[in-house]
């Protein structure tokens, strides 16, 4: 099984007619994802290599029965696009857009919680989700993933998500689902949401968790793991050498005062029984050992 998406998930792409939306939307379709439509206001009635384009999410949902949306629009329009998706009946929204103002993200997150409790937002500023062999929504290169499980991946960083997939696939270890939750300060989906889903998924037998400096989501995840997680977890936290007070690219990756350090996160995870590794390669090898022993 997979979490959040599967081979039947019907997906629309908001921004399909843009450069990135087109490239990745088509690539997702080539991977086998059911990309059933695109949305660009004013371009309804046209198509992108056979994928029908609609003027609004509402129209697209009515015509295609899509339940998921891949939001690939510039930061200025992303908040409105996410809300339009929720209002249009989409229940799983993947937003890859980088550079959305934190104030907009805070409003969007709370609007969804208050008015659309059944909607899950993944991202913003995330690589998306891939369930190898079934569904790929976002910008992950499908050829680095391997179908069949038994590992679930959840990661705060895009490129480290790819690195994690690659490390496992190189060893012949498959993945059930790989979720990139994104590095922004207000992610729609957090570590615990994914850990919970992986814990409940019978095909997922171990979880790789990639974190980074900033915030305290990793610490909170550690507390959850300690209480609820029965499956082995391997973790890597990026930013051990990051200087305090400097944003390391991601708006969320900043060590503030004594909070948010990689060491504090690694300590909390180790205390929860997680296998904490020092780099992505070591994490991949550790997971290899665990999977062999399953």
């Amino acid at each position: 099984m997979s979490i959040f998406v599967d081979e039947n998930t019907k997906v629309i792409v908001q921004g399909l007619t843009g450069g990135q939306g087109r490239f990745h939307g088509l690539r997702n379709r080539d991977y086998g994802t059911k990309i059933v439509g695109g949305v660009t206001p004013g371009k309804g009635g046209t198509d992108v290599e056979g994928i029908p384009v609609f003027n609004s999410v509402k129209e697209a949902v009515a015509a295609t029965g899509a339940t998921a949306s891949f939001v690939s629009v510039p930061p200025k329009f992303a908040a409105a696009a996410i809300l339009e998706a929720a209002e249009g009946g989409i229940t799983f929204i993947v937003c890859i857009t980088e550079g959305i103002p934190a104030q907009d993200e805070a409003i969007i997150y709370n609007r969804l919680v208050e008015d659309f409790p059944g909607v899950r937002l993944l991202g913003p500023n995330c690589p998306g989700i891939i369930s190898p062999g079934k569904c790929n929504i976002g910008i992950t290169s499908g050829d680095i993933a391997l179908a069949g499980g038994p590992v679930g991946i959840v990661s705060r960083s895009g490129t480290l998500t790819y690195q994690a997939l690659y490390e496992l696939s190189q060893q012949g270890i498959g993945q059930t689902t790989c979720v990139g939750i994104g590095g922004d300060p207000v992610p729609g989906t957090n570590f615990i949401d994914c850990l919970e889903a992986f814990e409940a998924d019978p095909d997922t037998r171990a979880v790789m968790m990639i974190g980074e400096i900033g915030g305290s989501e990793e610490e909170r995840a550690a507390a959850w793991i300690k209480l609820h997680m029965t499956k082995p977890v391997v973790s890597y936290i990026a930013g051990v050498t990051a200087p305090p007070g400097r944003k390391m690219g991601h708006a969320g990756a900043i060590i503030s005062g004594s909070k948010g350090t990689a060491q504090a996160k690694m300590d909390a995870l180790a205390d929860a029984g997680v296998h904490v590794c020092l780099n992505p390669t070591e994490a991949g090898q550790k997971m290899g050992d665990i999977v062999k022993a399953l």
Partner: protein
Amino acid sequence: MDLFEYQGKQYFARYGIAVSPGDIADTVDQAVAVAERVGYPVVVKAQVKVGGRGKAGGVKLAANVEEVRLHAGNILGLDIKGHVVRRLWIERSSDIAKEYYASFTLDRLNKVHLGMLSAQGGVEIEVVAEENPEAIAFLSIDPVHGLDLATARRWVNEAELDEVAREQAATLLVHLYECYTHGDCDLAEINPLILTPDNKVHALDAKVTLDENASFRHPEWEEFRATEFDDPREKMAKEKGLNYIGLDGTVGIIANGAGLAMSTLDVVNQVGGTAANFLDIGGGANADVMAAALEVINADPKVKAIFVNIFGGITRVDDVAHGVLEALGRVSIASPIVLRLDGTNAVEGRAILAPHLSASLITEPTMMDAARRAVSLAKA
């Protein structure tokens, strides 16, 4: 982007928050002119983006023109924790009856806005939080609904500000919240927020961090950019639109994605090297971006080897390869380049580079191999 105090105060003033009358000065003569204009006594304040300037001698009271000359002369050029003072803020001195603290920031754990208000201001709020946490009134604010005056009134009561300050403080807090939200701040902090003996409430200091993701809707931020960087490497990188942080090591780092860039720093460190910088060329980096990144790294004389670590996602590795070749054609890169390329269009990217590989342009199959090679070249 962190603002200087004077910029923060100017930003506050846009949102109707009372600040002391004053102006900036870059020379002793300018300082005197400002002091004459706002009236004595004045406070001469070093403008540096680092705490503890008072203890370092960067804040002085001046009662007359001689004292302004003396203090301005001493403070300009002063080194405060590695930050050299190049600009002063001269403002009319305020009599202080009480010092409070007020701030807004994002509560990342609960994904709401967090207001902090305390009747015990003027000292570091971290110290108050540690020693006397009940002296801080915390307020969680739903970003959808915002902060209204009625809530602000309850809040100032709860924080036990002096009776005479409460109504003014409540209004000021609503303005500060507007500044924080509409002004797209990551942090808007006033410490101290003061009550004067004649019962006026105003901001005596300003600490503002702006969310650069919101730049597109704030053309007025342009003036802050000119003063943003001390580090010339960071200034150059910013001009080229790169996400760069200068460090002290010898291995120049270029990676795509913040997480991978951080991880690259970590592995360089683990194999015995030191990173010269953090540089995330971001998603969708094209040839121009890659070329600009190599130029910035090349301008750092400490760099002895360059480690380019790319895992293509939205970034296409063939674009990166073109960028490397373009940069090599444009500038003479002083250090050897070690590349590790994987992900989207990696095969195409490696093929583009293959005919150009040499002792100064090397590829390695894995991130760890590339880190080891770069570190050994940096030490050679």
